[in-house]
């Protein structure tokens, strides 16, 4: 569905030969898969944003009655889940797909069909989870679904959709992660040893390890929940002596690394954009790399800072307070290195640059409030209030989204061969910037004035009206900015100025090839001799001339992987297999079992077809 919607949006001058819906369903080209990720995620961003809008309308005034309490709970649960799992992660994945092979000088990822599989799983999983709206049973347990509320006390289908949906999406992320780890390790062009790798690829590489290590944990936590809900196990059954904190620990062991999964790709993009538009290399490249690794490692030792109120005792509180604060140091190093990348540079404020600077400024705010949470006694007054909501929107919107928007403006030309409108872009940026501050800054106040989060209504006369009204107005401004952005994407796809190989004067390999790149990316695999090949290349050969006709893989005799429909089928049947479980709660267990068996069989069948057809024709 999303495919059909997005297919026409892309002029693939590189290889017109294979366009049309079928070519999109069967594609194994990392650039096309990247595009699919990008446009699908943006679609969900509209939905997630729409949910946010409804939240803000409801909270615009005291004791609002715009939606019912039940609906409201579904709204914030789905808003959070959507934004994190269906928007930011896949948006990052879009850039992993598009950029990693281009930046390391490869012709594709290590496992092209696995790559397609990841996308289809994501697509079907996201549709599955949102299908719950259609039967008025959207998840309503909050995005971290604490038990026993989500186990014993939520009989409906709502939580099943959430639980199974996350399970499906997990498969997608894991498959992609193994793929990219292998790609980065094994497909770097000659001469590109690790310390010459573009910083975005580095951050992406680190994120893959976070994914590989964090997702199994939530998988298990969800398996327990599934077993409890479907098969009557006791993992979260208080009456049986279970401890609900088990869920909280398992969730946050995943959950905190997850937040760095959400932000590191954005950091990577910003680290590409700032040098380009400062005409200066990244300040302290090695430190940027090491700090990234350190953040990731520390990220596994801080999870319980989400649980300071559960009564873990002073020793545990101290332990996690200290580890949490430590993370501020490597992150700070990044911030300052970015500032000093601009220092003494020749700054050009393109839209991409504006968003990059926006990240540096706004993430810092979120980070500082984060450090305030890190102090348990103070956090007892902050936790589960809008003060927290403010924190994580500054890091998520001010951090991740700003970086990703910047990335879109920066790489849209490479993806489509056309530039986005700078004029609309500027409007998008300033409205988003003003809107987001107007929305989320007052939340610090409303939180400290005693407004708990996840509350359907707040009472009048408690000094909360003004701040909530400001937040709502800010949100509407953001809505306008997003619409401008959407319009920009749509209108520029045909009318945008033709980009050429390197519209920005950027230093890294992806800019040495035509835009959009030919299916094989590099006619000849480059040999890398430095961190910024295109800058060090003293106006040597400019790569294929922009606009000139690009020879096809066949003409060059470059072996390309064949398209395949099987990854799509495997993904589809897997989704149906999980979905069949819902029948258990509809009292149709036999059908459920039948469904699971059938779809498991079909899935295995398609899997064998996939594995037994060779990736390429013999050559």
């Amino acid at each position, binding site marked *: 569905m999303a495919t059909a919607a997005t297919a026409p949006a892309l002029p693939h001058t590189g290889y017109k030969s294979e366009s049309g819906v079928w070519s999109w369903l069967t594609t194994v080209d990392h650039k096309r898969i990247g595009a699919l990720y990008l446009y699908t995620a943006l679609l969900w961003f509209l939905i997630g944003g729409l949910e946010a809008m409804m939240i803000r309308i409801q909270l615009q005034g005291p004791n609002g009655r715009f939606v019912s309490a039940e609906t409201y709970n579904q709204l914030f649960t789905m808003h959070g889940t959507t934004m994190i799992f269906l928007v930011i992660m896949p948006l990052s994945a879009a850039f992993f797909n598009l950029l990693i092979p281009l930046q390391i000088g490869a012709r594709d990822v290590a496992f092209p069909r696995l790559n397609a599989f990841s996308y289809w799983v994501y697509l079907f999983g996201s549709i599955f989870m949102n299908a719950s709206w259609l039967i008025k049973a959207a998840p309503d347990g909050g995005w971290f679904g*604490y038990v026993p*509320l989500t186990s014993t006390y939520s009989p409906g289908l709502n939580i099943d959709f959430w639980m199974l949906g996350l399970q499906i999406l997990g498969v997608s992320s894991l498959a992609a992660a193994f793929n990219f780890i292998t790609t980065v390790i094994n497909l770097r062009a000659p001469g590109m040893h690790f310390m010459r790798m573009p910083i975005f690829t580095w951050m992406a590489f680190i994120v893959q390890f976070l994914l590989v290590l964090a997702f199994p944990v939530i998988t298990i936590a969800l398996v327990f929940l599934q077993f409890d809900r479907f098969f009557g196990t006791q993992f979260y059954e208080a009456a049986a002596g279970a401890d609900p904190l088990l869920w909280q620990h398992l969730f946050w062991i995943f959950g905190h690394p997850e937040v760095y999964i959400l932000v590191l790709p954005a950091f990577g993009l910003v680290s590409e954009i700032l040098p380009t538009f400062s005409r200066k290399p990244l300040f302290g*490249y090695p430190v940027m790399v090491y700090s990234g690794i350190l953040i990731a490692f520390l990220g596994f030792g801080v999870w319980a800072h989400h649980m300071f109120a559960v009564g873990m005792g002073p020793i545990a509180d101290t332990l996690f307070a200290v580890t949490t604060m430590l993370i501020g140091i490597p992150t700070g190093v990044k911030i300052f290195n970015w500032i*000093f990348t601009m220092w003494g540079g020749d700054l050009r404020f393109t839209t991409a640059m504006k968003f990059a600077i926006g990240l540096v400024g706004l993430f810092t705010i979120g980070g500082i409030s984060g450090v305030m949470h890190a102090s348990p*006694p103070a956090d007892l007054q902050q936790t589960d209030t809008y003060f927290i909501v403010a924190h994580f929107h500054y890091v998520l919107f001010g951090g991740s989204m700003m970086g990703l928007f910047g990335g879109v403006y920066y790489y849209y030309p490479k993806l489509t061969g056309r530039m986005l409108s700078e004029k609309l872009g500027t409007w998008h940026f300033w409205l988003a910037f003003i809107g987001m501050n107007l929305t989320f800054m007052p939340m610090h106040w409303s939180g400290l004035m005693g407004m*708990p989060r*996840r509350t359907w209504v707040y009472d009048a006369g408690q000094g909360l009206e003004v701040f909530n009204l400001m937040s709502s107005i800010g949100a509407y401004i953001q809505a306008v900015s997003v619409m401008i952005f959407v319009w920009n994407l749509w209108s520029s796809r045909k009318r945008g100025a033709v980009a050429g190989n390197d519209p920005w004067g950027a230093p890294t390999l992806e800019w040495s090839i035509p835009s959009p790149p030919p299916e094989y990316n590099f006619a000849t695999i480059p040999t890398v001799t430095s961190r910024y090949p295109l800058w060090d290349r003293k106006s040597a050969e400019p790569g294929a001339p922009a606009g000139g006709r690009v020879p096809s893989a066949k003409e060059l005799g470059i072996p390309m992987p064949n398209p395949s429909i099987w990854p799509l089928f495997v993904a589809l049947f897997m989704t149906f297999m999980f979905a069949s479980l819902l029948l258990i709660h509809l009292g149709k267990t036999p059908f459920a079992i039948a469904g699971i068996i059938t779809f498991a069989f079909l899935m295995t069948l398609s899997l064998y077809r996939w594995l037994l057809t060779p990736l390429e024709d013999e050559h």
Partner: protein
Amino acid sequence: MPAESRLRRLVTAALTAAVASLIAGCVQNPNSVFHHRTDFNRDVGSLFELLIWLGTIVFIFTEGMLLWAIVKYRSRPGKPHQPEQVHGNTRLEILWTVIPAVVLAIIAVPTVQTIFKTQGAARADALQVEVTGHQWWWEFRYPQYGVATANELYLPIGRTVSFALKTHDVIHSFWIPALGGKRDLVNNRTNHIWFTPDSTTEEAFNGFCAEYCGTSHANMRFKAFTVTSEEFASWIAHQQSPALVIPALGAPPTPPPANATKATKAPTKTTTATATQTQAQPAPVQAGFVSFARERMPHHAIPQTPLPPGLTFDTTLVGDASRGGMLVATGLCTGCHTIKGVPTMQAQTGPDLTHVGSRLTIAAGLFPNDTRHLAAWIKNSRAMKPGIQMPTMGKGQYDPIVKSTLTIGFTDQQIADIVAYLQALK
């Protein structure tokens, strides 16, 4: 240069203003976490203010540097377009590794001290309060006095109070911004938090459930009143006294009816029969302090939740407490509520109603406890508080959970009687 420095001064000014107003604005607000009314909150507060000021300094420093770079190094016509290619500077990078480390150390030390201070054991002679969370109301017990109440907490000024927090169903979180930070109510665990209220006079505070706990999480509020120790003693004494009793109810409890329809029918018969003979004893004359003075309730503590449109009640109807008592003691209410001294009223599912008449709010701090709201509540509580267990009981009312309109149920007159009885339960 002047351009930049002006800009910088501007930003700095704006920020200090912002922070000042952050603290100021909050201090004025009686709900805010900076409205310190306990030792606990003062400790937390001083730590928090340290965090805010350090945070502000870091913020001004970082953002200032950012703005400076943006303004100073923006591309200008005259300027050479090939800046010097700096790749890094180890000394600088060490500098901004060390400085944050120092700042964090400055935060960490008082943090750890406060952790151990606030989580130590409460003094032995502390007032014990058992808090039990229910979807979506609060049960408060004073084990030292054998007193049980709901949704309204009385605390003597100057005496340390130690809360034992438990939950009946899902995880909740106990929070009174002005008195103390949150503690979650977790299954199979008993959490503790203690503090000493040090208000100068009697005060009323808002309390909240701060952990998402389902449909009416937003409506799981409560009130806390700090009173003098004399008033507290008198309040306890009053709470210990049995409720207004109706003789006819001394009879062995009539088993709680099985389902709504029968239940709501049952009383309609009995009342007409018994109303005439029974006479309610006048409530025992109340000496001294029985509840926080209504007129002293501060604006922010008075619930302003609107009644759902269409849920009306003619407040001119005069109710008969004894008839109302019969309805209560023989009807659905027996299934869930306790009224000390009434044999049929010993259930634990819902709030203890023994002294409900002396409370200032109903429905977990959602509505003021007056005739209009109480009547509406009896009539159709589910329309007033989404998702709750207490059934809709007014004749012809629409039950949003069962999704049907009641063909039988209490008439407005009967509701007036019940309200009269409940209000008599001072």
